[in-house]
């Protein structure tokens, strides 16, 4: 007891908080890195047109009932000339030629089928109801959308979604 009493006159040293800013900075950097919008990730440039009264795909995403494909000009301009009209389709970040070159290989159909097989077991919807969401660039020719539709029709994946940006009531 006497040992403690000896120090009684001095105040307790405060908790060292000098590392708190570091911790918070780490959090900050984490969020700065993690929240880059997914729009920028694909290998093709996609800027969606605006729309309203859209359907929010979040509940479908939670149930993994939606697959995304991106249609736009390749980020690398040197590659653009390889594709019909300069537009390419990106399936899981692999740039494909637009559907015209694919009628024989049927890449879209194969991709969709593979995706469907890899779905978690809790996803019970039939393939007809699993949404394929096309995120197309503003300037992309609509003909490609119909080419994609045709490919999906072949494998009986009958639900398609056209992505737009909804600035209104979300």
């Amino acid at each position: 007891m006497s040992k403690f009493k000896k120090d009684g006159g001095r105040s307790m040293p405060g908790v060292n908080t000098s590392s708190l800013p570091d911790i918070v900075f780490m959090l900050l950097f984490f969020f700065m890195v993690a929240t880059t919008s997914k729009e920028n990730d694909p290998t093709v440039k996609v800027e969606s047109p605006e729309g309203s009264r859209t359907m929010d795909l979040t509940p479908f995403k939670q149930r993994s009932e939606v697959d995304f494909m991106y249609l736009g000009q390749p980020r690398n301009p040197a590659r653009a000339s390889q594709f019909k009209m300069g537009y390419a389709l990106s399936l899981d970040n692999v740039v494909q030629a637009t559907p015209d070159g694919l009628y024989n290989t049927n890449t879209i159909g194969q991709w969709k089928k593979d995706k469907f097989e890899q779905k978690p077991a809790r996803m019970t919807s039939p393939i007809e109801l699993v949404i394929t969401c096309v995120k197309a660039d503003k300037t992309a020719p609509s003909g490609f959308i119909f080419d994609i539709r045709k490919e999906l029709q072949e494998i009986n994946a009958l639900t398609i979604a056209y992505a737009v940006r909804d600035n209104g009531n979300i």
Partner: protein
Amino acid sequence: MSKREVQEINAGSMADIAFLLLIFFLVTTTMDKDQAYIRSIPKKIEVVNKPVEVEKRNILAIKANTQNQLMVRGEIFSDPDKISEFILKFYRTNEKSPGQYVDNDMPLYSVITVDQIQQNIDFIVSEIEAMEAAGSPSDMVTFKYNQLTEWEKKQRALKIYGKNQLPEIHFQANIRIEVMQATAYSIFAKIQTEIEEAIYQLRDEESMRLWNVSYGTLKRKEANENDKNKVKEEKDKLDLLEILYPARLIEVTPKI
């Protein structure tokens, strides 16, 4: 000199500064929600029958060319925002005179009564029984079952509609999107937006009138619930609205 230690710089507020920055980034960066229009693709058919003749008054064709100009029913539309008004006109013109012939170029409305729906259901049930007894091909039976589901849906819809007859737009009335291959996707999306706007407005007004609930609320409730049994009421209401204002879209595959 003095025995006092050099005072440390107070870094306590550093954390606050970092927190501020953190919150700034949390607010400004958006994890984008995915918004889209969901459409269904018609099933592939092997045998193509001769297309059914559709009366002109039942078709609302929205066309767009390679120069991104719009045409609705043969008229050039310079302002794409006006398309939804035209679609509203398409649905609304003859809505108030169901079951009568009206001399204009908009689709007619018909009425169906409770008894008629019951008759149809009874008829289809007897047909299914006969087909199953005769061992008809399974797709025919499935087709009949689908028909039966449709009629039952109508029956439920009429029940919550609270009247003894249900007005219906002509079964062939449809909206057609005819774009060309080189039409920009933004125009295609704009047409979809306008259609969606019009349909939303029609259903929303009806929903407000009947139950004082907005159509958006009903739809959100239905979409966010995984257990479909919990949202039966909403589902029936949505079905009724869909029967009253069906969105029959035909997206025509461009030839050129």
